[in-house]
């Protein structure tokens, strides 16, 4: 009785605080209310998730987009932490906001354990693991070890794990789980998995397979891409995504596999997904300094490599780099990004660490411009790739168009 009252008060507090935060214009109103609610009742997330069907999405890159694709593809009323607040306070806020029985939560890699304990998810999507903000986060192998422990928790026993078979760190984390659907999710990034996550011997690779002498190897595939067609189990589903790049087709493949695990009709799910054209300001067209741009977010080498592959055919590219707390204070990772693919293009360097970027580009043999004033306005859309806080700054400085 008292527990129910306390949870009721805490849930109401989440809504009220978030409403005040939004009205006062001081916050996006997602984290602060959740924090207050969790303070009043630490078991609030468990209570709010009770009797709902939950899908968790985690990994270094593609969390927000894949979460949006799952939410769009699922039929009916779905609630989600669509502002990217991906720790318990953000989860509580998303659940307190709506009574929808379908829930998809983007989850920070390090918070997967606590979140799955609280929500007993039906499906857990494991996208990928790669180096990211190394001066803040644990080393990437340690995260894989933690995932492995999380997935052994009793609350994960009944979950279907949807996991990337082409990422050896993900396979190492998930291969002991009992119910895994393995997806061939394309990635060109292998720098973090040159040596085996289990035994550190060199991994062996051919074009379509990887393995190690210790026995860790690419598992049998459940899902893969055949051009623009997603093959999930025995079902072929044509994709018509509003999002660019092969990496987004990979995200869609994993989203469809997750929905297939809970028996959502895949043809209809795919057509609903095609309506997603913008995710939290990414990919949408905006106007900055009079220039029409497409904002792209990339926070780490794997994310940058994926974005560089999918650039439009305009000669100019803008790139903006900051190194604040949320970005990681150390932009050394710029030397892990294959900027050499930009040779022949012209890059406008923006952000607080534009000189670090311009130096990296000079060594890559790419024409770079810093602080030379506003460039002439192009009549075509220019792609702007920015890391975390640089992206937020650009979002604030720009207007949708």
């Amino acid at each position, binding site marked *: 009785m008292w527990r129910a009252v306390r949870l009721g008060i805490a849930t109401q507090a989440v809504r009220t605080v978030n409403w005040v935060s939004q009205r006062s214009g001081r916050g996006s109103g997602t984290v602060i209310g959740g924090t207050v609610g969790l303070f009043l009742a630490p078991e609030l997330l468990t209570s709010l998730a009770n009797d709902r069907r939950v899908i968790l999405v985690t990994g270094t890159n593609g969390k927000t987009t894949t979460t949006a694709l799952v939410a769009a593809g699922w039929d009916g009323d779905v609630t989600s932490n669509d502002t990217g607040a991906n720790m318990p306070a953000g989860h509580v806020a998303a659940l307190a906001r709506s009574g929808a029985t379908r829930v998809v939560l983007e989850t920070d890699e390090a918070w997967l354990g606590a979140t799955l304990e609280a929500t007993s998810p039906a499906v857990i999507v494991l996208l990928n693991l790669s*180096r990211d903000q*190394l*001066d803040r986060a644990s*080393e990437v*192998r340690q995260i894989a070890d933690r995932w492995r422990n999380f997935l052994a928790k009793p609350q994960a026993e009944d979950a279907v794990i949807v996991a990337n078979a082409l990422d050896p760190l993900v396979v190492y984390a998930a291969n002991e789980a009992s119910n895994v659907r393995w997806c061939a999710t394309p990635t060109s990034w292998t*720098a973090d998995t*040159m*040596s085996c996550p289990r035994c*550190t011997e*060199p991994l062996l690779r051919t074009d379509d397979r990887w393995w190690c002498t210790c026995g860790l190897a690419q598992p049998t595939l459940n899902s893969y891409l055949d051009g623009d067609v997603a093959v999930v189990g025995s079902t072929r589903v044509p994709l018509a995504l509003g999002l660019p790049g092969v990496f987004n087709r990979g995200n869609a493949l994993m989203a469809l596999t997750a929905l297939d695990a809970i028996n959502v009709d895949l043809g209809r799910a795919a057509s609903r997904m095609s309506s997603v054209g913008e995710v939290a300001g990414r990919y949408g067209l905006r106007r900055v300094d009079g220039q029409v741009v497409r904002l792209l977010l990339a926070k780490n080498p794997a994310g940058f490599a994926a974005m560089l592959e999918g650039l439009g055919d305009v000669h100019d590219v803008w790139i903006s780099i900051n190194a604040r707390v949320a970005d990681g*204070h*150390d932009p*050394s*990772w*710029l*030397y*892990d990004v294959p900027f050499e693919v930009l040779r022949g293009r012209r890059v406008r360097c923006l952000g607080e660490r534009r*000189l*670090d970027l*311009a*130096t*990296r580009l*000079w*060594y*890559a*043999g790419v024409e*770079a411009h*810093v602080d030379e004033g506003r460039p002439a306005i192009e009549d075509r859309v220019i792609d702007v790739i920015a890391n975390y806080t640089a992206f937020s700054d650009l979002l604030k400085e720009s207007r949708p168009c």
Partner: protein
Amino acid sequence: MLSIVQVYPELLGTYGDGGNGLVLAERARRRGIDVELVRAGMDGELPTGDVYLLGGGEDGPQRLAVALLAAAGLSSRVDDGAMVFAVCAGLQMLGSSFSVQGDDQYVGLGLVDAVTTRAPVRAVGDLVTMVEGTMMVGFENHGGETRIGPGVEPFATVVRGRGNDGVVDGFRAGRVWATYAHGPVLALNPWLADAVLSEALGGRELAPLESVADRLYESRCRALTTRSTG
């Protein structure tokens, strides 16, 4: 032909350390010096080179790299006149012993009299040092505390950050140079890149080479000495 060998990038390349090889090779190439940048894979033989670059690495890969380099005979390459420039875990590997997770000590390559133990806390942040009167700027992220032997010359004195022990950073033992500032420290300090290049070329004087890297160096020196936070 100047040959620069980036050692085991699959094991020792956690923080953009590959940038050091790129920087050396480009600064040589743009001066018209005949140069090759070779990636030494861990599954092949260690190529013959004029400079061996050692990067940082996570604990398991660091121990594996020591075993591979000991077997490949890095120390005899140094005896034959090759240069080594090491950062972060690479520094620890060159010493007599080091510890990673837990308190176990592991035998290092023993090229330099230096012992690394685990420090109570990790050093994560900007590293600013003075190398013979010139400022070096960089970033460190490591859990080690390194004591160099009585006859060993430190690479630099620490202005900000930890380096070996909060007082000095790295070591310079003949042509074996090491710093805790991880890659791409040579991109941040073009003068240091040229010092390594010149040493590798037997002390040859290099033509000036202006680039945006000079502006970056000046701006980092200013940012790290006039403000309390980086």
